[in-house]
């Protein structure tokens, strides 16, 4: 029996030594050796490789963003409404918070799913606002957008991918205790089929349903992310929504010059019924031509400062969320805004 015990003990010991891994003791963070043996490999179990959603040096994804947007003075030209004649009013400023959060809920090599929420508000300061009900509503109630969005990036292989983004937004002159009906939710979606040609070039073509011109429309879309071989310059574009030329000073400091078209359709509940307009929809759309500087303050906390010109694309009013497409149906109110300088500053928590 003693022999049996010794045999078991020996067996255990031999097993322990047999399992001792073929390891390299690492004494330093930097090791030099012949790395060429790692060039010719195959994926164990026959796995498949997939492309990623980013190119080299692309700006980091913002997990959480809290910002302040400010537009300087400009003139608001309002159409006749009810007893109020058409008139020009001076807008001293338009300002408000912008909050966004966007988290990866599924982050796998073969699929990425992000879910997010956003909240934007615009408070108006208008001289002589009491002369026009729309100006009154803008100053008294502000414009707000609350929304959710989902993004799915599905790589098909090392080169091809599908990108889908869907968003649902409630936009209007509501207050939070007096929230807007969910029936007024506006839906946007984008579908893109793309190619990742190499680590510095990714592009795709698709179709989007968007409110960026203030009202629903369907337009073709081009995704184009490119980093030049020098790695100092790049392009980040989802045309026609936005396009930016990027300058990388380091991995923690980036600058951009470009534009973005921003827009929503706002249900103006406070002027409902005026002049026979049952469902007033303010079609607000702005082309923002701007320069942006983004810098890592500490680790994953980035600051973003943006300065530019806000060019009015649309500030007309419809009765109902009708689909105009590229047609030329008249608006219930045809308004106008002169252009204004603006800046946006935000603090951001960026993704690993």
């Amino acid at each position, binding site marked *: *029996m*003693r022999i*049996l*015990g010794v045999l*078991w*003990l020996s*067996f*255990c*010991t031999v*097993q*322990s030594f047999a*399992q001792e*891994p*073929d*390891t*390299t*003791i*690492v004494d*330093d*963070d*930097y*090791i*030099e*050796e012949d*790395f060429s*043996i*790692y*060039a*010719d*490999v*195959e*994926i*164990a*179990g026959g*796995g498949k*490789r*997939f492309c*990623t959603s980013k190119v*080299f*040096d692309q700006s*980091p994804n913002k*997990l959480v963003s809290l910002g302040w947007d400010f537009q300087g003075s400009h003139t608001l030209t309002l159409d006749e409404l009810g007893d109020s004649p058409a008139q020009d009013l001076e807008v001293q400023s338009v300002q408000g918070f912008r909050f966004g959060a966007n*988290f*990866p809920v599924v*982050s*796998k*090599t*073969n699929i990425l799913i992000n879910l997010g929420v956003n909240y934007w508000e615009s408070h108006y300061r208008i001289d002589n606002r009491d002369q026009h009900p729309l100006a009154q509503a803008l100053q008294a109630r502000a414009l707000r957008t609350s929304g959710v969005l989902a993004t799915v990036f599905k790589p098909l292989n*090392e080169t091809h991918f599908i990108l889908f983004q869907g968003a649902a937004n409630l936009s209007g002159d509501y207050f939070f205790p007096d929230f807007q009906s969910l029936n007024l939710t506006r839906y946007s979606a984008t579908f893109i089929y793309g190619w990742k040609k190499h*680590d510095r070039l990714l592009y795709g073509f698709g179709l989007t349903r968007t409110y960026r011109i203030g009202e629903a429309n369907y337009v073709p879309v081009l995704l184009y992310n490119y980093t030049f*071989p*020098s790695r100092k310059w790049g392009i980040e574009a989802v045309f026609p929504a936005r396009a930016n030329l990027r300058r990388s000073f*380091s*991995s*923690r400091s980036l600058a951009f010059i470009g534009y973005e078209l921003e827009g929503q359709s706002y249900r103006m509940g406070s002027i409902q019924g005026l002049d026979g307009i049952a469902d007033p929809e303010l079609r607000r759309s702005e082309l923002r031509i701007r320069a942006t500087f983004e810098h890592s303050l500490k*680790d*994953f906390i980035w600051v973003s400062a943006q300065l530019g010109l806000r060019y009015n694309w649309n500030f007309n009013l419809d009765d109902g969320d009708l689909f105009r497409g590229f047609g030329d149906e008249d608006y219930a109110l045809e308004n106008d805004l002169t252009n204004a300088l603006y800046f946006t500053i935000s603090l951001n*928590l960026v*993704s*690993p």
Partner: protein
Amino acid sequence: MKQIILSTTFFFLCSSFVVAQEEADAILGVWESGSGKARIKIDKSGELYYGRIVWLREPKDENGKPKVDKNNPDEKLRNKPLLGYRMLKNFSFVGDKTWEDGTIYDPENGSTYSCTIEMKNKNTLDVRGFIGVSLFGRTDVWKRVTIKKRS
């Protein structure tokens, strides 16, 4: 009889230790990151696990020179080569096919993240880098690669 019981107990203790050690060391080997841009060899030092870059899809910089750790927050280390750099550090095996309490370094931006590694199967790792809490993070799926024998 007493000897048999003692020996049997000792055997099971040894076997458990060996099995646990095997499970912990299952992470050893060469892995390819989800992007396919890098291969990382995971080694062991003492009871802790480390991973260093052993292959880069683009090993040269824009000037045709071997890439260095140019984004490292420590200026003294910015001329060190990326190949061979220890980007995974101090992982402990905590059971249930999971290694925790380590960090992962991203050479593309010079940031170091908290990190957990979970083995989904013997050839697949879920490597989750995060900031503070796991919610603020991203999971990368690494695949085990085997080195082809040279003829």
